[in-house]
């Protein structure tokens, strides 16, 4: 395979982008663990990392996370295979259910973070 194989077709390129998005996401999550460690002594001694560079990095990582999640969940229809009354469930319905679960999980996590963050 030539070194630049992934630039030859758009599908290869977007596949590499999909895989690459995991890397900055992993770095951000590592930083998130550091922040949790720093916050263990309570709110009095905690000062969140709020530099412009970090905010920009976080926004980029958020976009990467959304791209990765959307491409991942869109592929669920090809992976999951269920039969109901001997008939397969349409893949579009499976994909839709994955997005619905994602949205529901985001609402629950958001609620927990905001509710317990205030108390």
């Amino acid at each position, binding site marked *: 395979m030539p070194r630049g194989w992934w630039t030859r077709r758009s599908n290869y390129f977007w*596949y590499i982008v999909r895989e690459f998005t995991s890397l900055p996401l992993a770095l951000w999550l590592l930083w998130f663990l550091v922040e949790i460690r720093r916050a263990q002594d309570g709110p009095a001694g905690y000062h969140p990392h709020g530099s412009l560079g970090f905010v920009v990095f976080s926004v980029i990582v958020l976009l990467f996370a959304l791209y990765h999640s959307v491409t991942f969940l869109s592929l669920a229809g*090809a*992976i999951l*295979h269920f039969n109901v009354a001997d008939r397969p469930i349409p893949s579009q319905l499976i994909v839709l259910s994955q997005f619905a679960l994602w949205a529901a999980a985001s609402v629950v996590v958001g609620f927990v973070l905001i509710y317990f963050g205030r108390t």
Partner: protein
Amino acid sequence: MMVDGVPKLTCNAFLRDYWPRPVTVEPLNNFPIVRDLVIDMDDFMHKLKAIKPWVIRKQPVPLGGGPFTQTTAQIDEFRQFSQCINCMLCYAACPVYGLNDGFLGPAATALARRYNLDSRDQGLGQRLPVIADSEGIWECSFVGECSVVCPKGVDPAKAIQQTKLDTTMRFVLPFGNRD
């Protein structure tokens, strides 16, 4: 063959679709070239044979025992994966196979799934060591291009991902075995 860099069934490709641009025709990607447009298919044939693409029974059934019967729902389970014509376009499109020719590859895995889903077959246990090998399904990183170039709509990428899920469930839930 490769037509303008894309794996194509050339017996089904028409010059009118490319006219008036010049057309570049090359041998299939990812295979050793024997001469001109001829490629060496040996690796693919070995992989095809390795997954035992035939109905396997634990106990031989006598010929006088009558035909196997299947419902349309049982046939629909594997019909899509039985449409493969072994054209190898999926192998030419697969960068994983291009980087590691030890990879079992899309068509062989799709065919293995075709037989594993067949209600008459009891050979899952014999195929599992090949398809769940380190160079089997787990090498696939779901580029998906195999399914894009497939001229018969077999969707080998789907077959591989479903096999990954099945083998994982088989590992996690041993009571779900079927063989």
